[in-house]
C-alpha cells in the first residue's frame, strides 16, 4: 500500500476507467459519476485503496466506469460485500452505489443493518423513483398512484422515505443532494467521505426515459429556490427567491413562515450534530406541496464504528493471549498415550 509520502496528486482522469459509459443519453447518473470522479482525488487517498461496490440496476453499472477496485455484485447485496470487505480490510475506502429498488426493495434488510452497525462505508443511493433497468415499473419510492407498466391504474403502494429509513436505522451520517447540483453534491460527497462510520447520501436522480422530470421541482431554475431548503449546520432554516421564507416549529409541527413577519430569531436552527434524531426526522418528512425539500446534511454524529470495534476486540484478545495453536488444540481435558501402549 502506498504511504502518504509517496502519494501522487490525483485528478478526475485517474478515476475514469477505459470502459465506454453506457447509460442513456441525458441520464442523471452521468452527473453523479462526474462529481464522484471529481471528488475522490481531493481526499488524498491512493487510488488503489478505493473500492466501489454496487448491486444491480442502472446505478450499479457505476464500478465499471471507475478506475478503482470494484465489484458489480448481485441485487441488493452490495452493503454485505462492503461490510465483509471492510472487516477484512479496514484500511480501504469503500463506496457502495445503489438505487431505490436495490437498497429499499430487495436489499432493504442489508441497507438497514449496514447503517445500524455503522460500518465505515459510504452508501450513495441514486433515487429516481422508478425501475429503469427492467424498463419502467414502480419502485419503493414511487408516489402512490404512480402509473407505470406494472401499475397501469396507478400504484397502490405507499412510498418509503430513504432518509426516514436511515434515521430509523440510527445512521450516523445522513444527507441528500440532487444530480444537477454539482457544487452541492461535491460538498456533500466530501463530507460523507470524511465522516467516520456509515454514511447515506440520497441523490435525487432523473431517469430520462422512464420517469423524466420526477425531481423537476428541485431542478427547474425558476422553481428551485422556492422548493429547496439548503441545510446548513447552526444556521436558521431559510429559503425562497430572496430567502424570505423560513421554517418555524409550532408545537410539534413545523410550518413555513414569512421571515420578515416572525423574525429570523424564531426560525428553526439546523443542528446536524443533535444526538437525538428528532430534528432530522422533522426534516425528513418535509416536501411538496406544503414544504420545501431539504438538501444537505441531515445528521452527522460520532458513533462507535463496527469494523474498528471488531479490530479492537481482536487486538485486545491478542494482547491477552498468545496465538499458540498447540495450546488451542490441547484446551480442555487431554490425555497422553505413551509410546509403548499397545
Amino acid at each position, binding site marked *: 500500500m502506498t504511504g502518504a509520502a509517496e502519494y501522487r496528486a490525483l485528478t478526475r482522469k485517474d478515476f475514469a476507467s477505459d470502459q465506454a459509459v453506457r447509460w442513456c443519453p441525458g441520464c442523471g447518473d452521468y452527473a453523479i459519476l462526474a462529481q464522484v470522479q471529481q471528488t475522490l482525488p481531493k481526499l488524498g487517498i491512493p487510488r488503489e485503496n478505493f473500492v466501489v461496490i454496487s448491486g444491480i440496476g442502472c446505478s450499479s453499472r457505476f464500478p465499471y466506469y471507475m478506475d478503482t477496485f470494484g465489484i458489480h455484485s448481485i441485487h441488493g447485496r452490495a452493503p*454485505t460485500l462492503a461490510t465483509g470487505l471492510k472487516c477484512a480490510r479496514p484500511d480501504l475506502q469503500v463506496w457502495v452505489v445503489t438505487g431505490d429498488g436495490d437498497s429499499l426493495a430487495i436489499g432493504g434488510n442489508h441497507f438497514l443493518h449496514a447503517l445500524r452497525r455503522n460500518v465505515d462505508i459510504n452508501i450513495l443511493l441514486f433515487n429516481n423513483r422508478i425501475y429503469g433497468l427492467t424498463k419502467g415499473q414502480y419502485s419503493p419510492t414511487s408516489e402512490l398512484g404512480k402509473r407505470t407498466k406494472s401499475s397501469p391504474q396507478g400504484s397502490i403502494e405507499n412510498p418509503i422515505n430513504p432518509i426516514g429509513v436511515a434515521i430509523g436505522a440510527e445512521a450516523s451520517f445522513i444527507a441528500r443532494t440532487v444530480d444537477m447540483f454539482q457544487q452541492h453534491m461535491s460538498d456533500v460527497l466530501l463530507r460523507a467521505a470524511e465522516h467516520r462510520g456509515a454514511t447515506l447520501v440520497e441523490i435525487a436522480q432523473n431517469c430520462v426515459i422512464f420517469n423524466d422530470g420526477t425531481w423537476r421541482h428541485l431542478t427547474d431554475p425558476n422553481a428551485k429556490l422556492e422548493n429547496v431548503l439548503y441545510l446548513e449546520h447552526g444556521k436558521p432554516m431559510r429559503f425562497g427567491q430572496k430567502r424570505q421564507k423560513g421554517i418555524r416549529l409550532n408545537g410539534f409541527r413545523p410550518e413555513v413562515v414569512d421571515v420578515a413577519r416572525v423574525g429570523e430569531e424564531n426560525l428553526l436552527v439546523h443542528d446536524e450534530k443533535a444526538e437525538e434524531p428528532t430534528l432530522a426526522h422533522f426534516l425528513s418528512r418535509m416536501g411538496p406541496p406544503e414544504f420545501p425539500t431539504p438538501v444537505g446534511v441531515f445528521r452527522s454524529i460520532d458513533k462507535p464504528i463496527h469494523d474498528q470495534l471488531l479490530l479492537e476486540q481482536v487486538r485486545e484478545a491478542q494482547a491477552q493471549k498468545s496465538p499458540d495453536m498447540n495450546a488451542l*488444540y490441547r484446551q480442555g481435558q487431554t490425555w497422553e498415550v505413551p509410546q509403548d501402549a499397545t
Partner: protein
Amino acid sequence: MTKSLTQKQELDRVTILFCGDSGDGMQLTGSQFTATSALFGNDVSTFPDYPSEIRAPAGSLAGVSAFQINFSSIPIHTPGDTPDALVAMNPAALKVYLPKLKPKGMLIVNRDTFSDVNLKKAGYGENPLEDPELANQYQLRAVPITTLTVNALEDVDLDNRAKQRCKNFFALGLIYWIYDRPLEPTLRWIEEKFTRAPKVAQANQRALETGYQLGETEESFTVNYIVAKAPTDAGAYRLVNGNEASALGFATAARLAGKPLVYSSYPITPATDVLHELAKLKHLDVRTIQYEDEIAAMGSAIGAAFGGTFSLTGTSGPGVCLKSEAINLAIMLELPVVILNVQRGGPSTGMPTKTEQADLLQAFAGRNGESPIPILAAANPADCFDVAIEAFRIAVRHMTPVFMLTDGYIANGAEPWRVPRFEDLETIEVTHPTDPEGFLPYARDESTLGRPWVIPGTAGMEHRLGGLEKQERTGAVSYDPENHERMCRLRAEKIERIADFLPEASPDGPSEGDLLVLSWGGTFGAVYSACQEAQKKGLAVAHLHLRHLNPFPRGLREVLSRYRKVLIPELNLGQLALLIRAKYLVDAVSFNKIKGRPFTIAEVEQKIEEMLS
C-alpha cells in the same frame, strides 16, 4: 454396609444411553461419562440426540433429550447400534428409548418420577414399572434417584429444587460404579465449573459420590463391568466433536497461510456452535460477524475474500438455499470462500436437530446456470479438522468457492482426536501478485486454471469484478456467444482439474470381488464397521469412502468396474447414487435411510448380506 460379593466381568465394548427431560442435564451427564472414559483410555464415540425445543413441556415425549455413548477396549467407529444399558430419568424417556434397549439390557430408571401426572404425559395408561414383564425382559433397577439425592444433601444449605437438580450426578455416580470408572475427572470438573457457587459444587460432588456408593452397597447391583483401555497410537488426545474440529481446522488453515480468518454467519442449528467456537478465537485474528441473514453472510464472505483474508461462511441446508445466489457470484468472481453446510433433516425447516445427508445435490447443482463447485465431506468428528484445512487449501489454490459438508451427527458427536503439532502441518501457500506488468484479472495458472488473487491496495492493478459474464483473460463484461461457452467450459475444467491434486480412489479390502460399498460423509463409521465385519466373515466386500464428491477422485471408474456389485448407503434417497450412475453408467444399488438418525452397523451388515445372497 458392604455387599457379600460383586462379580467382575470384562467386556470389550459397552453402549449406554442416558435419557431424560430436556432440563435433566442428560447432555452434561453423557459428556462427563465420555470424558472420563476417554481419559481412562477407552475408545469412545457419542451421539447426542436432543429436541429442537429449548424447553419442551416438562415430562412430555417431545421434551426427551438423550445422549448415547459407546466406549471400548477395541477400535470403534460409531456410537453403538443398541444400548447395553439405558438410564431413563422419567417415564417419557423410558417410553421413547426403551425400544432401543438390548434384550436383558441394564435398565435404570428414576422411580420417583413415575407419578400419575408424568405417566399421563408420557402416554402410559399404567405404571410400566409395575408390569412384571419389564423386569423379565430387562435387568430393571428402579431407583428412587431424586429421593436419595435429596436425602444425601440434607445438611447442604440449598433449596429443595436445587438439591433435586443434582440427581443427574447421582445417576452418573451409579453408572460409574457399574462400569468401574474413576470419579476424579468429574469431581474435578464440577469444582472448576462451579468455582463461584461452592455449595452447588459440593452438592453435585456429593450426589456423584452417593450414587457410586449405592452401587457399592446395594445388593441388587451384582456385577461390576470392566472395559479395558483401547490400543491407540502414541500421542496426545482430546475429545472433539465435529463442529469444534471444523472450527479448529478453519482457524488452523488461516494460520497456516498467515492470514486472518473472517467468519460471516447467521445462527442456525446445527451449525451455530461453529460460530460460538470461532468467536472465542479473536486472539488468532479470527474475526466473526453475526449477520442479519444468510444472504448477508455469504455476501460478506465474498467481500472478505476480495480483501485477501481467509473467508468462511457456515450454515445448514436452509441457509444454503438463501446463500445460493451469492455462491454463484463467488463462482463467477472466482474468489476463494469456504462454505460449511452442517446438514440436517430437510426439506424446508425439516428436522433441525436431526441428521441427514440430503444436501449433496443442492451443493452440486443448487444454483442457476453452469456453476461447478468443489465439494468435500467429513467422515467423522475428527476428520472435520483435516477437511476444513483441505477445503481452504483447494479454495486458494484453485481460486474457487468450496463446499464442505458435515452433518448433525458428526457435528455433535464426539470422539478422541489425536492432537496434531501445528509445526507438523503443511503451510498453505498464497500469493497476491503485485506486478502490474501484463496483469489480466482472468489470466489463468496453467496447471490449476486459477486466476490471480490480486487484492485492493495493490497499485496499478485496479480492476472490476462482477456477476456478468467475463471475457476470457481480461474479465471485461462480455456477451459474446463463443466466449460464454468457452468460459463455462473453463470454469468446469478448473474444478475437474482439482482431481489432479487429490489421491486416487483406493478401496479398503479386496481389490476386486463381489461387492464394493461406496459411502461418503458421516456414514463412514457404520459402513466401515459393517464392511470389516463382512470381511471377517470372508466375504469379498471392499469399502471406498469418498471425501471428494466433486470432482470425484481419479481412478474411481476403474475401481467401480472391479466389483460385481456396487452398494451405496446414504441418509437420503440416493443422491450420490444418482451422480455415480450418471457419471460412470454403473448399476449401483442405493441403500437409503431418512429417519433423522444415522445408520446402525447392523443395518448395513444386513444389506451387505442381502446383496451377496
